[in-house]
């Protein structure tokens, strides 16, 4: 069986641009939340979000010019800009920017998004209403389509292997990484760029999730305290934006070229709830089957898991996932650390599973579990260590990352340390 390892990472998150910037701030327990600055949010029930910090690139800010030329940026929605930026970082990190022509044929891309060019769609609809259909840009469609990150990345680097994109709401990033790993395992490619991107912090995006009663609304005076998974006072998720992308590579291929190997993808599980369009099944059955499927692929027992990066969105559903993990872990529950990094990044929707996979990989690299911040008054008692407000230095050989999406779509990724 062909083994799949991670050899490159790229991040654009509300905590900053770049993997090390984001990760150091995660370990410090910093919040990326604040009052919305990109547009006038005063008509909305939620006036705060986790926006990517924009700037000239210094102090971890995101400068789009560093990744995409201004004239090209005009033609693409922001989610593609984030995706291209994270992909560029990951490719450079892996040392795979300029492989041979033959190697390019064996390099593919699978980068998804939960919603895609939502803001471009809204703006174009206004344009048609106000000025008529003749004013619609020829770049509207190719600048909004979800698979156009995969397309753009392949064009930028000449990667001519499988070109695919995942759309499974908040499980997108995790499904992309898991499915891409299988393409390598099944010998469709030797190297895959995989992950997710999202840029839905816009009036239509916030209004839509507000209508679903999914977003936090009560903490406009202190947005940095709004994302509080497992806490009694949680009242919904805080929307985030950005992208996370990994380079996956067949193990022998990575070893032969002396690549830095961060971790191995040792398991991937999927399941469906078949229950409700927005709510997870109350017994957490779908979540549990997804996690168990990932363990099954790795041939491991639950007790082998050291760290779980929870889906944990700061909604009522947090305790459903927690109960499923408790059930699965059984007597080993007291040995595992499980945290929600969404307490710091907010919920990046289609990018969440990808950035959280990267945090799980870095937890293995650095032997430290990120904290769950704003966890002051736990809603339930549990034997599981939720790392409230402080990171945990501990042994982490095996890490699990969970993602669950609207429609009842579940994915679990299992990463293992490579000796």
């Amino acid at each position: 069986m062909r083994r799949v390892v991670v050899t490159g990472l790229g991040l654009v998150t509300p905590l900053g641009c770049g993997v090390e910037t984001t990760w150091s701030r995660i370990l410090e327990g910093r919040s990326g939340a604040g009052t919305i600055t990109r547009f006038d949010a005063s008509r909305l029930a939620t006036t705060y979000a986790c926006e990517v910090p924009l700037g000239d690139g210094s102090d971890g800010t995101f400068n789009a010019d560093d990744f995409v030329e201004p004239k090209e940026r005009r033609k693409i929605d922001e989610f593609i800009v984030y995706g291209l930026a994270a992909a560029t970082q990951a490719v450079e990190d892996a040392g795979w920017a300029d492989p041979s022509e033959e190697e390019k044929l064996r390099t593919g891309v699978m980068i998804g998004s939960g919603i895609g060019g939502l803001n471009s769609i809204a703006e174009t609809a206004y344009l048609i209403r106000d000025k008529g259909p003749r004013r619609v840009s020829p770049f509207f469609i190719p600048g909004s389509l979800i698979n156009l990150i995969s397309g753009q990345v392949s064009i930028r680097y000449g990667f001519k292997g499988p070109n695919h994109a995942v759309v499974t709401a908040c499980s997108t990033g995790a499904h992309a990484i898991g499915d891409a790993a299988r393409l390598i395992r099944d010998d469709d490619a030797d190297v895959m760029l995989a992950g997710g991107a999202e840029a839905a912090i816009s009036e239509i995006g916030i209004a839509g999730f507000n209508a679903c009663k999914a977003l936090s609304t009560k903490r406009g005076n202190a947005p940095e305290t709004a994302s509080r998974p497992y806490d009694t006072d949680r009242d919904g998720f805080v929307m985030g934006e950005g992208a996370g992308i990994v380079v996956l590579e067949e193990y022998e291929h990575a070893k032969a070229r002396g690549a830095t190997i961060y971790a191995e993808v040792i398991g991937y599980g999927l399941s469906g709830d078949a229950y409700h369009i927005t709510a997870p099944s109350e017994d957490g059955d779908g979540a549990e089957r997804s996690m168990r499927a990932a363990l099954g692929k790795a041939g491991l027992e639950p007790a082998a898991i050291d760290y779980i990066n929870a889906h944990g969105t700061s909604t009522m559903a947090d305790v459903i996932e927690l109960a499923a993990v408790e059930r699965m872990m059984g007597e080993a529950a007291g040995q595992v650390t499980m945290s929600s990094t969404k307490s710091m990044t907010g919920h990046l929707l289609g990018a969440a599973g990808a950035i959280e996979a990267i945090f799980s990989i870095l937890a293995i690299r650095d032997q430290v579990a990120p904290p769950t911040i704003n966890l002051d008054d736990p809603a339930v008692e549990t034997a599981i260590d939720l790392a409230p407000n402080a990171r945990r230095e501990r042994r982490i050989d095996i890490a699990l990352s969970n993602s669950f999406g609207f429609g009842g779509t579940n994915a679990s990724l299992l990463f293992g340390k490579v000796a």
Partner: protein
Amino acid sequence: MSDIADRVKKIVVEHLGVEEDKVSDSASFIDDLGADSLDTVELVMAFEEEFGIEIPDDAAENIQTFGDAVKFIEDAQ
């Protein structure tokens, strides 16, 4: 250079990200200025917007150089 030519040149420079001195009368949008077919559609739309004119599709197909664009717009005014 006429006022119209100046305004057309400004649009071309902005949309295609090219140096101003490359935009000569005979410069082809596609062959010389790096545009693709979608870029040329957008350019024509930008001319329509700037000059408050309508450029029918068959006329747009004949606008291949900077000079073609300036001449078409001067005639349409």
